[in-house]
């Protein structure tokens, strides 16, 4: 039984992608601290093997802050256990993942209120006085 279970076990999640990404993240943290330059790593273009993305997510862990954005489907913006390293996941209206990124920055840009939205919101507020 044990032998069969072992042979049927899913292949190891280590296909060589996790360590280089963690290393890249570490260098991006250095850049952020030294020159204030943010980095975005697009996780879509990487040849992850089965279970590898989950392994990366687990390795980065969960930090203090997470946010949910409702715009053209849901997005999750979560700080990892490493401050300044954010995990962003965009979903479409069908709740399918359309983008996954690591952002190494103080605050991901998408969390900030955008001028165009602030102006439109102010106009709506003004309408209340009419």
């Amino acid at each position, binding site marked *: 039984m044990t032998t069969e279970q072992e042979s049927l076990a899913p*292949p190891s999640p280590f296909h060589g992608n996790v360590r280089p990404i963690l290393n890249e993240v570490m260098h991006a943290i250095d850049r952020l601290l030294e020159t204030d330059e943010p980095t975005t790593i697009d996780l879509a273009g990487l040849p992850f093997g089965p279970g590898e993305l989950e392994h990366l997510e687990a390795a980065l862990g969960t930090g203090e802050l997470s946010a949910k954005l409702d*715009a053209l489907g849901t997005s999750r913006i979560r700080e990892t256990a490493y401050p300044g390293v954010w995990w962003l996941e965009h979903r479409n*209206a069908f709740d399918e993942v359309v983008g996954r*990124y690591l952002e190494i920055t103080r605050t991901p*840009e*998408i969390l900030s209120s*955008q001028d165009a939205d602030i102006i439109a919101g102010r106009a709506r507020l003004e309408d209340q006085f009419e």
Partner: protein
Amino acid sequence: MKRTPTVGEVLRAKGVSRRGFLKYCATTASILALPPSMIPRIAEAIENARRPSVIWLSFQECTGCTESLTRSASPTVEGLIFDTISLDYHHTLQAAAGDQAEAARHAAMVENDGGYLVLVDGSIPTGNPGFSTIAGISNVDMLKETVAGAAAVVAIGSCAAFGGIPGANPNPTGAVSVMDLVTDKPVINVPGCPPIPTVMTAVLAHFLTFGAIPDLDKHGRPMTFFGTTIHDRCYRRPFYEQGKFANTFDDEGAKAGWCLYKLGCKGPTTYNACATAKWNSGTSFPIEAGHPCLGCSEPNFWDAGGFYEPLSTGNFDSGEKLAGAAVAGVALGAVAAAAGRRRQAKFTKEG
């Protein structure tokens, strides 16, 4: 030409916030394989782009390509079809039929003369024109008439790009590809059986963002997606290098997820983005599901030998020999883009 609204105007009218728009641009950059630093430029271009008119012609096809596109997760299908392009004719998706549908096609051609895109799925029979007709018009005539005022033509799927399954031996209908018939317009080939949905949407997004067609390889395929082989980006590649192969679909090697070369994998000679773009909303791709690559995005893949025959049949008693055989298979392969070739040369030295 009538004044069509910009994409920015359309999105704002629909109540899409700037944040939503930035999210849309980020996913567009991602499918175009552009660095995230390009997002502001993409945002500006898309904001001011006018929705291109698209006419989609379906000839000898199985509707698999339309199925693939309408199951696309990127950026959103409803976004792509209704917000960023104006799909003026698609006889599978549109409500109108017969004369009404043909009138819509003609109206789009006149209003957008010189600026519309024609998307084609399916091959075109050149034998008896009656083999395939739409509204009594033969496929050849409809293609020629429709592309006359087009800015560019996109051949969606291996049938439109290379003749595909209808064109396979003995090709009873005399099926040919779009580029066999259209020689005076840019033709972008997006092969695959079916093509990867994100690749189809990316070609449209590229046209929208840059107002131009992407860089193409010698088979007319966008380099961004067809610049490297499946084997170049395959997560099973370390097993190939170590000479660890599955010999049957249920042996220990297959269970351990080893390389599928001996089971007929065409990954080493196939240029496509499956290994990274993946299928079913990024779930996996055929090799990840345990099946060798069939080479579906290459010309004449259907007639290119058995799907379960190794690329190079030799004496596979050692991984070393096999690695050499695989390289020979690559060298003999019908296509080799420069990037892939460089990588293979390096690999040959190491192997």
